[in-house]
């Protein structure tokens, strides 16, 4: 086929919807992802019993703020990385700063505790062995949906783009997880919440490597 003929066919398709902008599609991914995580929490984990009371305290909002901002950083990164030659630098900088800040605050809380046993309690909380795993599971539907959506865009760095989708999904998943998880120390959040979100990003990078080719 001659290229001119192909161009004719492409031009005849000019009026077809060019598709929603990446921004709109990613916002939809975020909304559906949050919804699926919420359904998972309600059907599988249940809401924390003292949710109303917790919502009047500051720790609940600090957790939500931290994980929500991590998700936002993921969105900012993938909004650029879903386009050719995008680097997502601003998103990565935001995520790095958030992680560093939270880990620092968590370390300070643990190191200034009364004795080593108390520090260990801070680190382990009541659910250290399931927290990161649960967050990753809550993020899975959104990760899959996000990778599929970004595959329809034009990422030129598949590993980084996959990681950004994972960060986006992990942040949203962890935020919804706050509705279930009663842990209330910065040390705990800085370790296990962060690990869950970073795990989701790692999984995204791994899958993105082959799933995000076009």
């Amino acid at each position, binding site marked *: *086929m001659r290229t001119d003929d192909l161009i004719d066919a*492409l*031009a005849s398709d000019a009026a077809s919807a*060019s*598709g*929603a902008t990446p921004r709109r599609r990613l916002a939809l991914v975020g909304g559906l992802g949050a919804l699926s995580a919420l359904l998972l929490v309600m059907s599988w984990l249940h809401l924390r019993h003292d949710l109303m009371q917790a919502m009047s305290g500051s720790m609940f909002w600090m957790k939500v703020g931290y994980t929500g901002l991590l998700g936002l950083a993921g969105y900012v990164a993938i909004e650029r990385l*879903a386009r050719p*030659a995008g680097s997502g630098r601003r998103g990565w900088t935001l995520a790095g700063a958030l992680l560093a800040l939270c880990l620092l605050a968590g370390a300070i809380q643990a190191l200034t505790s009364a004795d080593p046993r108390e520090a260990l309690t801070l680190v382990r909380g009541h659910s250290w062995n399931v927290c990161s795993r649960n967050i990753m599971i809550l993020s899975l539907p959104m990760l899959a949906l996000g990778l599929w959506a970004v595959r329809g865009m*034009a990422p030129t760095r598949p590993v980084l783009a996959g990681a950004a989708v994972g960060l986006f999904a992990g942040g949203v998943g962890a935020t919804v997880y706050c509705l279930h998880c009663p842990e209330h120390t910065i040390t705990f959040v800085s370790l296990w919440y962060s690990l869950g979100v970073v795990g989701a990003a790692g999984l995204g990078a791994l899958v993105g490597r082959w799933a995000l080719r076009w």
Partner: protein
Amino acid sequence: MTDTETRLKALMLRGLDGDAVAYRECLALLGVRLRAYFARRMSGAPGDVEDLVQETLLAVHLKRSTWDSAQSFTAWAHAVARYKLIDHWRRRKIRQTLPIEDHIEFLAADAPEPGVGLELDRALASLPEKQRTLVSDVKLTGLSLAEAGARAGISEGAAKVALHRALKALAERMRRADG
């Protein structure tokens, strides 16, 4: 050279609004640049140049919503071409590095004569009959989408949908052609 960017960008913007004539001109101009770009970098396999031009034009068309119109259109198209070239080398297991060039150079036009793309024909042959006739019959000047649809035995609305689906399928098949 920046004139080319201004011109391409204006045509592309009109194309995004559904102006098929402007869009055709934009793709034709871009096709010439792409041919020159690939030919300069693939002296070892001139036969693949036209395949890549066609694959890239398909990608430009199907991925055009990822162009942020606040940014340079040439830079965007160059990044798509660069990705397709690297992907081509990766699939063919060719070890080659591509320096990060300025996209201004991408505008230089010293294009060879257009060749014939074989991969597109191969991909086209694997499409269902109706879609295949549609893609090869539809012309901007000549057979309209409605007429081409009539020849394939479908309404204009159905032809619209079928053409879009066919183009998507072509892009996917070309990409997988050499796996």
